[in-house]
């Protein structure tokens, strides 16, 4: 397996390590292999962009790294723990502890205020604490908008609430799925600056994106095509790890 792990990262200090991970689904026409023998690792504090066309397996990879699903084959290690053999309940607990999600469509609950939306992540993690949630909103510059409903916030503000919600439980990994896909240029810059700041303070960021500008912010790009993984440094040549 050594040779399948991406150059430039060391599996022993990886916060995320995929070793021959395959995910198959039963379809009408037979078994569909959404992810095929994927192997790479991401070290703590690294910012990685995952790119690829629709149907390339990005959602499956997000599901797996986000602990929303388990591999059919192979091993997925997150923060030193293999998730492959976890029960669904253990996986739920592990996800709440380790992963902070940032979504393209924000996915704020429309009837809860910005503050309550942040507290929702606390609710499913442990106990709600309004003071902590407020300081998380202040961290993204939205302390003054805490009591507003999502419908009263701009797209950029909603995405910042989503980031505050992802940060509230201090997860070691931030999983951002097209974080600027629904934003205009001005808000895209605000969110990019926020992610840059979070990376600077040591957060590991795994970001799925179609946007070359956003991908360029990452230290490394992992490209997906037809369920297969290709890894390379942002400005370097694409290297297939599958052979």
């Amino acid at each position, binding site marked *: 397996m050594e040779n399948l792990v991406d150059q430039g990262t060391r599996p022993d200090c990886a916060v995320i390590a995929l070793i021959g991970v395959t995910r198959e689904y039963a379809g009408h026409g037979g078994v569909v292999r959404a992810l095929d023998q994927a192997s790479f690792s991401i070290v703590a504090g690294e910012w990685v962009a995952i790119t690829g066309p629709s149907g390339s397996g990005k*959602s*499956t990879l*997000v*599901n797996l790294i*986000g602990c*929303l*699903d388990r591999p059919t084959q192979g091993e997925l290690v997150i923060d030193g723990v293999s998730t492959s053999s976890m029960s*669904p*309940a253990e996986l*739920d*607990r592990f*996800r*709440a*502890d380790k*992963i902070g*999600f940032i*979504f*393209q*469509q924000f*996915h704020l*609950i*429309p*009837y*809860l*205020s910005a*503050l*309550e939306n942040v*507290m*929702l*992540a*606390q*609710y*499913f*993690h442990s*106990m*709600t*604490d*309004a003071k902590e949630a407020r300081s998380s909103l202040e961290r993204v510059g939205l302390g003054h908008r805490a*009591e507003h409903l999502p419908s009263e916030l701009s797209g950029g503000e909603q995405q910042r609430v989503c980031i505050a*919600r992802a940060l509230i*439980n201090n997860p070691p990994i931030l999983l951002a*799925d*097209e974080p600027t896909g629904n934003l205009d240029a001005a808000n895209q810059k605000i969110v990019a600056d926020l992610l840059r700041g979070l990376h600077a303070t040591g957060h590991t960021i795994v970001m799925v994106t179609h946007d070359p500008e956003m991908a360029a912010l990452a230290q490394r790009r992992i490209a997906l095509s037809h369920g297969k993984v290709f890894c390379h440094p942002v400005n370097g040549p694409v290297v297939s790890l599958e052979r």
Partner: protein
Amino acid sequence: MSGLSMSSILRRSLIHRRTRSFSALIALTVSAAVATALLTLYADLDSKLHREFRSFGANVVVTAPDQAHGLPPDTLKKIGLVTSPDARIAEFGYAVATTDRGTPVVVAGTDFGAIRELNSWWQVDTWPSSTQTDVALLGQRAAQFVTNEHSVQLDFAGHPLTLRGVGKLRTGGDEDSRIYLPLAAFSAWTGTQASVIEIQIPGGASEVEASITRLREALPGMKVEPVRQLVEGESRIVDKTHALMYGAVLLIALTVAVSVLATLSASVLERRRDFALMKALGGTQSSLMAMFLFEALILALGGVVAGYVLGSAAAWTIGKINFHTASWPRIGVLPLVLLLNLVIATLAALLPVRVLRSLEPAALLKGE
């Protein structure tokens, strides 16, 4: 804002999706109302049908072995002792007299008050008073045999009698050819006593059979017979109506349950992204199921409260219109209605959640 609880999330969710919540509540109210109404009517069916059957008249007839001597004088008292207090009893004495036109006619002596209660289905324009002794009730056909309906001239074995014709009777049966007069006047005129007692025993076939057994024991030598067609017909109709009602309850409950299931399931499925989000935030399968289930159960309880009131009102109205007596609310049906609604709500909440579990949260959150 000090905290966020499941109850506050649910309350806000229900208010925010008020149209969907309201339609789910309406569906559950309808299911509870239909179940309440049908179960209330079902529970009342026996008594209502038996009450209806009472209007068809006697279901047991006691006859003297010797028509000429009539029944012993204490027969009525003995019957009263072995039948229930709400049994309806009327005595009859029969003779054949001749009208002033020379036509033979059956005359029957009876108690007008008693036959009015016993045969409430008879169509009578004016009932004679039970205290008057010289009055007559003329069957529709018998009225044609006399010269003057208001002054009825009769003759029995050379004994003339004049009666005031008070009212006319129409049944479509033998009664139309008879002339009824008070039993006391009949006995004084013909010299014979009552020879037949007609009894209307309340209840179903088994109660009637039991009463007949008691009557035969109390009245040895008398002929005690059921009006077989009526008793068997009543039993058959009650059984068939029971089966029909039971089938209707099941069919309607099933139809309503499917409709409610569809409405509630749609409500849960349309929040698949909320489900995926909560899952991504660390919500466990059981905690999410509990949340959706709790919401459905709140709606189910609301539906039971409103449905019980509406269903009881519907049963009351249906009873009043069809049976002329209201069906009062029965608290005994409430546990069944509650159980039905809770089962529907539980299935409606848990089945879609099982479907959601098989979907990819990441794909749902991307809107795929």
